[in-house]
């Protein structure tokens, strides 16, 4: 009998074919699972590497130091230093002075070039003439003196220093000539052209299609901050109030059921639908200002509310009933129980949910496109004006600015858009770190 059975089943130490197959299947299954996890992590790494490698250079900007004269004959013919008269001199005149200053500087340094003067002038950014004009108008006493200032260079020259442009590609590009790159190299050797940290990218307003080198995020960041304030001050109290009612007071009936199903559905409604709502109600019907942070903030509030209510209810639910029983037992009313005992204990969880909701609102783009926040805005929006009311002045927002830049032709805007994403991600990182800190530090588990 034993001989028979060992023949059929073999030794425990020797795997038969079927066991082998099952073990292999086990290994394969594990391998699939591990592959899936690795693919997920890899996707994150590739995404971040792609954005950072494209965008990190936006925080650097190439500048050119020019020493030039500011001739009184051109800038203030009458010599009275009257600002109103001086304002009549346009950037075109300044542009000529600046260009000639650059050509003189090249002569002084002995940098020879066979480029036409017009091409030499184009090394400078179109924005630099406006920069010079602003400086002169701010300090008219500079007229007639010789000043040394730094100016932005053209986006292509900037790209040359960042590896985006080289001589081979310059041959094919009608916006840049190899000769300009030679001049840039020569100026770099003299220490007059250099790349440095670009604070203007974070603080300056957007710039037009032709001058990516001057485009900044100032207006967009300000607009996003305004909208986050609206969301915080509307969504936080309303969301907390709604979740307190639903979790602590609502009787179990048809109506509360409807509200509950409603909230979970609202959380899953595509964000663009909120944009349509905002456009139809806030802008077309109520005539609020287009592109204003107020409307943007209200739309984002409606979108964020259900996403705040759901975690807030979970936080309230996690407070054990014994706390409520104890408070009620010593004579507190139900309202006192909730506001004096349950709410403080649930507060860290609620705040975590609020911060995560705010983070989602900060990165949301689609609804803002519909309410006109894609507009080109160069003026910093004021928080309050008598005409436009609270947060009523046109503005853009960080993610919308990214979208805006992706729609422009000049490849330098790709760098700007990626750089803007980095700024956005840094904001999100700070917010999430804060949420994690709150959760770790204050959350209690029962």
């Amino acid at each position, binding site marked *: 009998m034993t001989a028979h059975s060992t023949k059929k089943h073999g030794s425990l130490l020797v795997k038969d074919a079927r066991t082998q197959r099952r073990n292999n299947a086990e290994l394969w299954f*594990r391998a699939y699972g591990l592959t*899936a996890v690795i693919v997920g992590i890899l996707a994150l790494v590739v995404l971040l590497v792609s954005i950072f490698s494209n965008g990190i250079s936006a925080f650097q900007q190439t500048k050119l130091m020019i020493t030039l004269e500011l001739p009184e004959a051109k800038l203030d013919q009458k010599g009275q230093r009257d600002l109103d008269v001086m304002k009549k001199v346009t950037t075109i005149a300044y542009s000529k002075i600046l260009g000639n200053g650059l050509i003189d500087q090249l002569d002084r340094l002995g940098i020879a070039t066979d480029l036409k003067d017009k091409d030499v002038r184009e090394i400078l950014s179109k924005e630099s003439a406006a920069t010079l004009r602003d400086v002169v108008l701010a300090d008219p006493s500079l007229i007639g003196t010789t000043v040394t200032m730094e100016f932005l260079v053209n986006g292509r020259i900037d790209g040359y220093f960042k590896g985006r442009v080289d001589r081979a590609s310059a041959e094919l590009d009608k916006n840049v000539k190899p000769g300009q790159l030679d001049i840039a190299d020569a100026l770099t050797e003299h220490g007059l052209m250099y790349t440095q940290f670009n604070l203007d990218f974070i603080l300056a307003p957007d710039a037009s299609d032709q001058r990516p080198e001057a485009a900044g995020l100032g207006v967009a960041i300000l607009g996003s901050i305004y909208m986050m304030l609206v969301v915080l001050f509307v969504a936080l109290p309303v969301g907390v109030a709604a979740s307190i*009612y639903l979790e602590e007071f609502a009787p179990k009936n048809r109506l509360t059921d409807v509200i509950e199903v409603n909230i979970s559905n609202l959380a899953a409604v595509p964000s663009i639908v909120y944009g349509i709502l905002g456009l*139809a109600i806030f802008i077309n019907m109520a005539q609020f200002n287009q592109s204003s942070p107020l409307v943007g903030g209200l739309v984002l509030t409606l979108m964020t509310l259900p996403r705040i209510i759901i975690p807030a209810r979970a936080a309230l639910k996690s407070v054990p009933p014994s706390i409520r029983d104890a408070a009620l037992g010593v004579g507190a009313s139900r309202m006192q129980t909730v506001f004096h005992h349950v709410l403080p204990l649930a507060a860290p969880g609620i705040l975590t949910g609020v911060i995560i909701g705010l983070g989602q609102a900060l990165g949301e783009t689609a609804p803002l496109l519909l309410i006109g926040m894609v507009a080109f805005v160069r003026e910093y929006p004021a928080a309050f004006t008598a005409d436009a009311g609270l947060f009523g002045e046109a503005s853009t927002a960080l993610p919308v600015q990214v979208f805006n830049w992706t729609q422009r032709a000049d490849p330098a805007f790709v760098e700007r858009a990626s750089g803007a*994403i980095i700024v956005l991600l840094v904001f999100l990182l700070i917010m999430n770190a804060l949420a994690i800190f709150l959760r770790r530090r204050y959350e209690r588990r029962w």
Partner: protein
Amino acid sequence: MVSLSFLFGVTLFLAVIGFFAGRAKATSSVNGNFRLLQALPKAYGQTVLFSTLIPASLLLFGWAFVVRILGPDFAVLPDFVFQGLVIAIATIGAGVSYHLIKPSHRARAISERWIMGLLIAASALAIVTTIGIVLSMLSESANFFRQHSWTDFFFGAVWAPNFRGGSELSILPLLWGTLYISLISLIVAVPIGLFAAIYMSEYAGTRLRSVAKPAIEILAGIPTIVYGLFALITVGPMLRDFFAQPLGLGSSSSSVMTAGLVMGVMLIPFVSSLSDDIINAVPQAMRDGSLGLGATKSETIRQVVVPAALPGIVGAVLLAASRAIGETMIVVLGAGAAARFDLNPFEAMTTVTVKIVSQLTGDTDFASPETLVAFALGLSLFVITLGLNIVALVIVRKYREQYE
């Protein structure tokens, strides 16, 4: 209209004064002996505060909003009458509630009733939002269907808006692009998300989990515009250079494949966290029973855990599908703008959401069907995603109850 903030400031000022006056009156009515009061002195103050502030600001903001919506012609009351009315209501509220204060006044119960009213109003906002969404889209869609035949919208085959009139506006080509892209994204996200969830909950050691779980959660927190840019500058050109052009399938960097792949990556954490919850809800006893009978771990998962969790997983897939259908920025930047029926995944196609954005941005004329069609598209999108969500929620909820 004198600024709302000024009127509100006055009301708030009255209310705060009322609070302190009410508290003082309650205290002095019992000569400082609080035990004779029905409630704490501050509760008396609160009754004054609420009855001053709430009715007046309701009138203030409600009326201002109504006038905004119906236009200035509707403002039948001259401004100064309206302002007087607001101030009067605030004063009456303050006066009456102040007058009512006496030791036997049940101040706590009354002020709590005010608070309860506020709480209920806050939760009703969810319903108001839904009604707002539905009504705003319904009215504009009705406007659209008055100008454009509904048969062309639902059954036509061509999307060709023409601002000089005679447009053909059919949702079908857009819906085709939407579904095609969503399908590709689900083919990417469902297996990866599901396997990742299974591996992390059943196999992974603590060290791998402590790295992988946050990494996948980070993917979930990245805004969609980031994925959109990723599609535009990295994935699109890569697919074009390494697949589409060598295979002769097209030369467009924005394509169904680009948008679908990137959207798939976006959905991985979504599928994985939902499946994780669902797999963890399967009772341990079922796993133990299977393992005890000699099944290997993978056999247990394939033959016991997954079948038991299947309804929940289907629900998760439906939720993911609804996310994919409603996603906007990835397709705006990655999918292209051409409305066509095509099977080639390397061809640029467009979706419902892309067309909503393109019809509603820029200079728009809210009387033309070319603009109004966006509302009909939005309504269709809302109905589709709502349907998917409701089915998914019902399935998930039923499934959860099964093991509770």
